[in-house]
């Protein structure tokens, strides 16, 4: 999902750059206020851990492989603000040292993978954590949240590519979101396995009540504003006129037949269910069905990973 140089236009690069700087500034402010000093070196070493973990590839259907992103994993282990800082550091080093992800796209990459993935995953994690108790609850919530984080980040990425006119939205969305709905399953699986291993060996590292696991009102408002602006700039313009407006243009210009090519064989083609009038509602419904399915899988995974004896402990 690392966007290289040359894919984003100046407008998009500048807008994502401003959003990324604002988001990271909020995260640094939260870290300064909430992270205990003894965890400062952990921030750096955990960033190195995320970088190393991103190099562990896992098989994805169809002969390709994906790798961990680690946003939710870092957020559960370090707290959301520290996770944003750690993921940003990983992306900066990948960009400056390895050329993985462009410099002009650094803002977009930080926004998608450090901010949207981490916070977009941590929000459902906290929500589910309130409902599901114990070690099983943590693992189920983290697995589902990891899947959400990858899907959200890929949608943001598709929106930026489409806003730059590098890729058409009706090619970018199915390709990016579709592939990442599968990669997200691997992300959820690894996150669950790692948290299971940590819970077994060092349960003291997983404390939901330590101060850095929550955000102050400044963090909440700051991150909320950054995410809302990003959504308004890069996703909303496409989601509302799509597909009616775009299809009309496509027909006018005579390339409507291209949109019909399925790029990926999906059980729910084009994310639209037959028999429902509004395409937007059908897309939302298809997404919701997919999410519920993954939630059920996550709960099943947690039952497999955590033995019944351990699950009874509070």
């Amino acid at each position, binding site marked *: 999902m690392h966007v*290289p*140089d*040359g894919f984003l236009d100046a407008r998009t690069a500048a807008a994502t750059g401003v959003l990324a700087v604002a988001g990271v500034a909020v995260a640094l402010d939260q870290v300064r206020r909430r992270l205990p000093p003894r965890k400062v070196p952990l921030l*750096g070493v955990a960033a*190195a*851990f995320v970088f190393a973990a991103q190099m*562990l590839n896992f098989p994805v259907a169809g002969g390709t492989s994906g790798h961990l992103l680690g946003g939710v994993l870092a957020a559960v282990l370090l707290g959301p603000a520290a996770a944003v800082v750690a993921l940003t550091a990983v992306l900066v*080093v990948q960009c*400056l040292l390895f050329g993985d992800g462009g410099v002009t796209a650094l803002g977009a990459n930080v926004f998608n993978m450090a901010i949207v993935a981490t916070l977009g995953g941590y929000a459902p994690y906290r929500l589910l954590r309130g409902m599901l108790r114990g070690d099983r609850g943590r693992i189920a919530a983290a697995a589902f949240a990891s899947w959400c984080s990858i899907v959200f980040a890929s949608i943001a990425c598709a929106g930026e590519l489409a806003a730059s006119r590098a890729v*058409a939205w009706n090619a970018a969305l199915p390709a990016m979101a579709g592939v990442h709905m599968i990669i997200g399953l691997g992300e959820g699986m690894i996150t669950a396995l790692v948290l299971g291993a940590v819970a077994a060996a060092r349960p003291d590292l997983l404390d939901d009540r330590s101060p850095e696991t929550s955000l102050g009102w400044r963090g909440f408002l700051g991150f909320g504003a950054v995410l809302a602006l990003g959504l308004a700039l890069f996703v909303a313009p496409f989601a509302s006129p799509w597909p009616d407006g775009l299809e009309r243009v496509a027909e006018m210009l005579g390339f409507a037949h291209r949109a019909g090519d399925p790029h990926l064989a999906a059980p729910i083609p084009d994310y639209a269910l037959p028999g429902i009038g509004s395409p937007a509602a059908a897309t939302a419904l298809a997404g919701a069905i997919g999410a519920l399915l993954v939630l059920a899988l996550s709960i099943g995974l947690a039952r497999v990973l955590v033995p019944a004896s351990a699950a009874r402990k509070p």
Partner: protein
Amino acid sequence: MRLDSLEAVSRGDGPLHRIPAGRKLAAALALVVVIALTPPADPRWYAAAAALLLGLALASRVSPRVLLIRLLLVEPFVLGIAVLSLFQPDGLRVFALILARGTLSLGVMLLLAATTPFADLLDVLRRLRIPSIFITTLALLYRYLFVLLEEVQRMRRARAARTFARSRRLDWRLLGDVAGRLFIRSTERAERIYAAMLARGWR
């Protein structure tokens, strides 16, 4: 190729190595911005940029093999996203444009990384008043990345020495166990680093 060989390459000596890191970073960024963000230009313009880049690479006295391997490692990712641009009207032109821009920008950044030690880049960021906690995070990340990667290699070697057969299910478990164990070792390492920092009068 060892991952940390870049550190040795970046500490080498050559005409580009001797330019102060701040100026080099500024020049590289300016070049990438011009290549990646300006409106589509004449193809000859990109050929000129490629010639300039090639000239700089040859003058830098960095082994062309090192640069080429690094380029080929990342190029598939550029190609992977660029392919999506074919699915639109005039897709081939957009594809070629994006590929040229992406590859040239990548070349500029790789040349910068190969001629500038990371510590010097951090120094530039520090002078730009990037918050110190972020600089510390970057420095620790760079310092311990290769340590952790060697830790992964040691764990893999230990596993390979002990197991004969493996199944797909075991692979997932194993991946999770390696990553989980790596996190615990990282945490313990961070605890030792903190003790060492305190012992040396940090804060």
